[in-house]
């Protein structure tokens, strides 16, 4: 298992009281899997990612991670506007104090491999929204992350860009044999991208159902074009209670 939540509880404390966000949450992700978590809004999806990243500690239960290299991809790309694309990609290396030419070379090679060669010297504002998310992904990968945590990374994009970036990001993650955990409220996105979809209940979040998605050839496009897409969509929708 790349990541395993065992009976995890998480409680938020604020002055106005305490909120149980997660209660007895159990699920696992195999190495190389692309797993999506869907659930009603406010059910604690982002909490799950923060726990997986180690930014929060569970109140109860255990979280096991194979290795600790996880990269976070956020709703907005969070590229630093004063840095060029190349310097943005180096950011994780700088923070870990890796200044070797080898590490930087690897990062640039990765960027070039995925079509960013001509953009390395540009500032983020000169790039389209889709291109910026690709840079954000390469920044995450260049850090050597094995497990990618994706927090609705497409939700800030317009619909057409979203479809394009969705396919783009999934292809790169698969191609690099990375493991990914995506949280989203978008059912069709979850079906199109994932090997497994986990459905959560409203707060406190528990696992309602897990579905292995096996149809299509693994690409989002083949999934969307498959006859089973609509059927799976309806099942998930019922489980969400919408």
């Amino acid at each position, binding site marked *: 298992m790349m990541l395993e939540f065992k009976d995890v509880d998480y409680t938020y404390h604020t002055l106005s009281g305490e909120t149980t966000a997660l209660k007895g949450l159990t699920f696992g992700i195999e190495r190389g899997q692309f797993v999506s978590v869907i659930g009603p809004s406010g059910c604690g999806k982002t909490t799950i990612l923060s726990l997986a990243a180690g*930014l929060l500690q569970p109140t109860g239960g255990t979280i096991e991670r194979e290795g600790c290299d996880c990269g976070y991809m956020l709703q*907005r790309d969070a590229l*630093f506007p004063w840095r060029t694309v190349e310097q943005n990609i180096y950011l994780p290396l700088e*923070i*870990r104090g890796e200044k070797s030419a080898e590490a930087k070379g690897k990062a640039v090679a990765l960027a070039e491999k995925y079509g960013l060669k001509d953009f390395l010297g540009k500032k983020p504002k000169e790039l389209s929204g889709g291109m910026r998310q690709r840079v954000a992904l390469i920044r995450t990968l260049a850090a050597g992350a094995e497990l990618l945590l994706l927090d609705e990374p497409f939700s800030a994009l317009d619909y057409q860009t979203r479809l394009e970036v969705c396919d783009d990001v999934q292809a790169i993650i698969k191609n690099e044999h990375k493991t990914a955990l995506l949280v989203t409220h978008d059912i069709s996105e979850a079906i199109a991208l994932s090997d497994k979809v986990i459905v959560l209940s409203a707060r406190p979040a528990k696992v309602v159902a897990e579905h292995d998605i096996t149809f299509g050839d693994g690409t989002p496009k083949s999934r969307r074009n498959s006859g089973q897409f609509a059927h799976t969509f309806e099942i998930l929708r019922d489980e969400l209670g919408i």
Partner: protein
Amino acid sequence: MKNVHQYSAGHIAFLKGVRRKKIIIWSARLGLLVALIGLWELCAQLELIDPFVTSSPSRVVATIGELYATGNLFYHIGITLMETLIGFFAAVILGYAIAVALWLSDGARKIFEPYIVVLNALPKIALGPLIIIWMGTGYTAIIFMTIIVSIIVCIMNTLTGFLQVDGTMLTLMRALGANKRQTLTKLVIPASLPQLMNTLKVAVGLAWIGSIMGEYIVSRAGLGYLIVYGGQVFRLDLVMTATIILCALAGAMYAVVALIERIVTK
């Protein structure tokens, strides 16, 4: 830069229009200045106003000449400029350092907040007598006044800039495992650069207020001294001259900061 020949006729016309507007605005600005000075001189010459009370451009020029001839012009300018610049840099640098310290520690920020608010609201001139007793009647007192007038705003503005840094970017830094020092140097300081430039602009104005106010309270030289002295002996030519020089200096200092801003935030 694209070659002009590659643009369409419509675009060239557009560029021309923009340029023409710019020329009109600049000519109007200069024209207004010339008109005001001309009107002032004319009224004084025709004795519609009493030049003894209002002075006049020609008398100001004569006073500048006189100050220059006696070697006093650059002496007074130099003293005030020195006080303002030392006060300005000390306030900006110290203010920045304090803002960094307050950013690093949430606890310190909360503890000091009410003190900063009160110090900000306090009219600094109230401290005049204390400053004279503590620091004497030399430049030190005036520089100190300049610093206390500007530093609180420097701290508050800089800190606001630090605290306005995008939350997503902070989360990213946390997820990457950055420590506070890295978050400060790699994210917070570069992200708040535009705010720092704003702070500098505000501090220019405040530093001039501080140094002139200081000179009003206690001084033996400087432009503020000339204004007070001129007022006391009823030499309003001197008051006007010093005020006009002050306008020019403050404008020039602001222009320098604006230029630095253009270079830095390009």
